[in-house]
């Protein structure tokens, strides 16, 4: 099992957001997590990636057989956990090229490998840019600065392609994307998918799941996964909305 989350409770500023969440992912799987706003979907992503301020009060996150509750974000990343941010951060003054090279070398350093050569690095950049149809040179552009919404999301997938994670979490990657950008982003994900990695796709809408076909669909509500099923569950949600889930569990 790649990821196994047991009875996870997470609080922000003393307020409990995740209330005993159980969830597991195997290699080669795509899991979609859906649910209304404010049910803890992004909190789950933050807890898995080790974001500051998200306090695990109870339960365990087991990744590749190890409890990672206390691991730093960079250690988790270097062990293969990747988050495609809902709102990618702009970092003026740091170029995309150097950012990626530093990230790649950090991961190589973690695995006791020598730094990537400039030639190999540039080759890899060119190759991965094609995957999400990034035309710009990136060299002279600061991380996400001045990128359009679509470019930012494509850039997230590009970074994912560069870093080749084992567990990738896509946090509302579809939000703010037009249909063409959505196709490109989904196409990138589909090309990266293999038997050796897994994806968790967090989304509100079924739309993205037409392009990235999930093996499992889970519905989150009030800090827990309340319903799991196959692809059909997503379609049912699209049709009926979330109200019936709410009614079922608030009762």
């Amino acid at each position, binding site marked *: 099992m790649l990821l196994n989350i047991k009875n996870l409770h997470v609080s922000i500023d003393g307020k409990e957001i995740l209330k005993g969440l159980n969830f597991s992912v195997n290699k080669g799987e795509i899991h979609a997590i859906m649910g209304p706003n404010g049910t803890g979907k992004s909190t789950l992503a933050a807890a898995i*990636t080790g*974001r*500051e301020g998200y306090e695990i009060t109870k339960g365990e996150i087991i990744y590749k057989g190890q409890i990672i509750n206390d691991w*730093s*974000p*960079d250690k988790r*990343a*270097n062990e293969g956990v*990747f*988050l495609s*941010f809902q709102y*990618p*951060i702009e*970092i*003026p*003054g*740091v*170029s995309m*090229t*150097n*950012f990626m*090279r*530093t*990230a790649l*070398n*950090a*991961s190589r350093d*973690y695995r006791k490998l020598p*730094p990537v050569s400039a030639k190999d690095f540039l080759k890899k950049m060119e190759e991965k840019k094609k995957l999400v149809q990034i035309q710009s040179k990136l*060299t*002279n552009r*600061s*991380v996400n600065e001045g990128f359009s919404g679509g470019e930012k999301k494509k850039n997230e997938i590009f*970074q994912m392609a560069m*870093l080749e994670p084992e567990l990738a979490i896509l946090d509302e990657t579809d939000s703010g994307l037009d249909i063409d950008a959505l196709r490109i982003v989904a196409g990138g994900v589909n090309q990266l998918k293999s038997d050796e990695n897994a994806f968790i796709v967090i989304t509100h809408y079924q739309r993205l799941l037409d392009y990235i076909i999930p093996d499992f669909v889970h519905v989150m509500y009030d800090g827990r996964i309340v319903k799991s099923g196959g692809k059909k569950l997503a379609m049912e949600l699209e049709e009926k909305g979330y109200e019936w889930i709410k009614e079922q569990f608030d009762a």
Partner: protein
Amino acid sequence: MHNPVKGNDIMEKIKKTYYPLEERFIRYFAEHFDELSRHDIPKVSYMRRKAMEAFQQTGFPHKKLEKWRNTDLEGIYKGNLEIFDRETPYEKQLSDIFLCEVHGFESRVISVLNGSFYSPEEEKLTVDKNGVIVGSLTRAMQEYPDLGEEYLGEIMPQQDGFKTLNTALVSDGVFIYVPDNVVVENTFQIINILNKPNLVVNVRNLVILGKNARLRLLHCDDSVNHHAGLINKVNEIYLNENAELELYKLQNLNNETALLNQTAIHQSANSRLKSSAFSLNGGIIRNEIFDFMNGEGAWSDVRGLYLMDQQQHIDNQVNVYHNAPHCDSNQLFKGILDNKATGVFNGYIYVKRDAQQTNAFQRNSNILLSKTARIDTMPHLEIYADDVKCSHGASVGQLDKEALFYLMQRGIPFVDARMLLMYAFADAVINEISIEALRISIQDMVKRRLRGDLSICDRCVLHCSNPDQPIIFDIDLSKI
């Protein structure tokens, strides 16, 4: 009118209680006036006496003065610094200490040791084929009294005790004259060093650029040991019509040294000033700039970057006077303070009533890395013209936590992520250096400074000139 003042006259005028250092200066002036003014042109003797009178009334600046509220030099006033007035005799092996060379960068090194121009006798004042004069200020005043009459002591406002003291006791410094229409290819590099313990020096530099003249000047203040010292420096710079000066200041001093770096610039019509100050280390550094935009169409861009830690103190006072129409000025000062470091930024823009079509922008941004670091920042505008575009702003913050997490989520460890963000913050100032080799050197120095390498070096606080030591910091921002 120019009668020498006798020691007794001076001592009789003493009314207030003085700090030991003030008293030493007043006595010194009384006892050494004849010697000090031996080669003076008449104007200078007169200036000295007026300035000493003023100094006696005010003494050194103190915390009750508005402009000195947050910079406290009392420790120095009470200390046992010695007034140093002798010229250090030239010895060839000593010239090795002027090591702050920047690699791959052609420059003409101008050395100032313990307050005096430092060179073999025959090079005290040289005149190049193109008419450029470089050398000792004292010597220049003797050989070119007309230039002294016209330019020396004309623009620096005598508004506090350090400036009057400098005027009263000015002994030497660097003189640079670039005639009309001469474009100087080489960068000139002034290296200012103290190599004796407990010194206080008063240095004055005078730089004159004729019409259409161009010069690039790098001004380094370095320490070569850990002795205490006080450098009271006044720079007077004249940019005649359409002249252009690029001025870089690099300050890398030990924690026991205080530097007062006071620069006044006169800008004639269409002249251009580009100034960047990099304050990397120093016990107390105070940079004052008085930029007088006196001619129409003058342009200036003044930047500063300061990286302070431990108990260091940095104070930037920027004063821009728009005295003529159609001038543009821009100031950007950025700083990172750690530990118990403290900083001050006072930005003042004045726009005269007739100075229409003025563009004046000012910005000061700070990052505080610890709860005990402190910055006092105060922008100030005074505008009397109605057709102007002016803005100012100041910010104080911590490193962006979101950005930090973003970098770490990509596998970059905290220490590197933090450094990368600090460097990115600083880069807006470094990026403006037009001389590539200098830019790369300063980038390297800033990287080392951010990694803490400079402050732990026991031999010297600088030594940027060690190319064998690789910068392990992996991010090559020179390619941004």
